């Protein structure tokens, strides 16, 4: 199958991107400055991420759409205000995760942002569940640009006036140069920032404009180190069809009001696990010293019994040390529990730690 390209591909090339294939797309892993510089620039200034490979699913319908979506997602959508976003999951009957996603209530419907590798299957699953009653559009005519970091609000507001008034996890339509953009204050780096949905033919010009105002293109490599420092899950690593949201330590994303009566796909398993606990749970892990423990590294207790596995591990540039996340048996999940990581045949000490590794405050109270 031919590799897909986003509308920013030429711009990536002219900025000396090193490309990798990701979910069938040719995507920039880094530019000439490298992952660590790009990471630090995002934390201190403003980084631009091409996330156009992700799915933008628009679903339109009347009030019955909300009812139908509540049978799928563990969210209180009836009480979700227009232009407000929630992090959620598409699950199977056993609460195994097909995908994690952001859903925003928009005028006459919902916008759901899906992972690139999952979007086509998600569309199929949702089409089967919702039937033909609602208009569904997995929109490939729109690009998705994230701008993240402390200077992003000033830079973006100079192009799209009014975005500074958005609270974290809210969005709205904006007009800029005679085009309709949907902007949410959100992101996946642990920084304040925005995601902008824009038609493909306007995307390159828009990003060039952001660069002129001082933001810089950042590759998927730094996106990964940023999200890991922020303790955020990546589908295919922390999350997959064999993991539930409770095991992934994402209880906070399940609306409390949905737990008493259930009625969403996977609710029985979720409610059971909320009461009895899950046997394995996702934790943060800090190796002692500088050793990096990557995905699939086996985790042991002090009696050499395997108790889990690393799902993501790298060097955290802002933490200035190695960081990881993984799943361990519940009794080893307390912060400061000593564990051992088997790397290249040797066991190295590490500690379970609180997430995130790196914390900044999101903008909550503009209005």
């Amino acid at each position, binding site marked *: 199958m031919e590799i897909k390209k986003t509308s920013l591909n030429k711009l990536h090339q002219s900025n000396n991107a090193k490309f990798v294939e990701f979910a069938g797309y040719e995507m920039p892993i880094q530019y000439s400055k*490298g992952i660590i510089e790009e990471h630090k620039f995002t934390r201190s200034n403003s980084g631009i991420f091409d996330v156009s490979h992700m799915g933008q699913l628009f679903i339109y319908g009347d009030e019955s759409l909300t009812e139908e979506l509540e049978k799928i997602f563990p969210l209180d959508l009836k009480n979700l205000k227009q232009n407000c976003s929630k992090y959620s999951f598409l699950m199977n009957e056993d609460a195994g995760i097909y995908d994690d996603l952001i859903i925003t209530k928009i005028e006459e419907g919902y916008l759901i942002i899906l992972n690139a590798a999952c979007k086509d299957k998600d569309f199929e699953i949702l089409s089967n569940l919702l039937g033909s009653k609602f208009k569904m559009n997995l929109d490939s005519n729109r690009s998705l640009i994230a701008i993240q970091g402390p200077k992003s609000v000033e830079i973006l507001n100079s192009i799209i006036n009014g975005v500074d008034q958005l609270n974290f996890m809210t969005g709205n339509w904006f007009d800029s140069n005679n085009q309709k953009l949907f902007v949410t204050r959100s992101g996946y780096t642990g920084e304040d920032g925005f995601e902008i949905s824009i038609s493909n033919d306007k995307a390159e010009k828009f990003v060039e404009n952001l660069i002129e105002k001082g933001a810089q293109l950042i590759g998927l490599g730094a996106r990964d180190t940023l999200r890991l420092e922020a303790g955020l899950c990546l589908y295919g690593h922390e999350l997959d069809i064999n993991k539930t949201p409770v095991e992934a330590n994402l209880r906070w994303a399940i609306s409390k009001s949905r737990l008493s009566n259930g009625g969403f796909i996977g609710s029985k398993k979720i409610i059971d696990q909320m009461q009895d606990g899950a046997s394995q749970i996702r934790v943060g892990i800090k190796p002692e010293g500088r050793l990096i423990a990557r995905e699939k590294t086996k985790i042991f207790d002090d009696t050499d019994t395997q108790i889990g596995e690393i799902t993501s591990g*790298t060097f955290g540039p802002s933490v200035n040390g190695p960081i990881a996340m993984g799943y361990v048996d519940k009794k080893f999940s307390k912060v400061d529990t000593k564990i051992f990581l088997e790397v290249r045949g040797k066991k190295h000490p590490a500690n379970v730690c609180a997430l995130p590794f790196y914390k900044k405050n999101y903008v909550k109270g503009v209005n």
Partner: protein
Amino acid sequence: MSEVKFSKEHEWITLEGDVATIGITKHATEMLGDIVFAELPEKGSNVEKDGTAGVVESTKAASDVYTPVSGEVVDTNQAIIDDPSKINEDPEGSAWFFKLKMKDQSEMNSLMNKEEYDKFAKESTS
């Protein structure tokens, strides 16, 4: 000091008396990206030509470091263990990896000179 020689695994080597100094090439560091971890062989251990003699990790992945010649490890560079970013800054100078007391100096003969290596590196990238 002898002429700098290079291996196909992207190590460089110089010889002074019977002691060889070994590191990884600038080209290797450019391929690896930001190096954030280095592991070196133990002093006093013996390493065999083309065998593994350490590990470097970038933000992206781990890579083995090989030794282009055999010998006993007589010194290792603690500075690159303490601050692996030095490897990106000066790979073919102060960021050497280890020194070996060579057993058989004829092992140097099969290695590439600078011109040959540059050509090899260019071809292996494209």
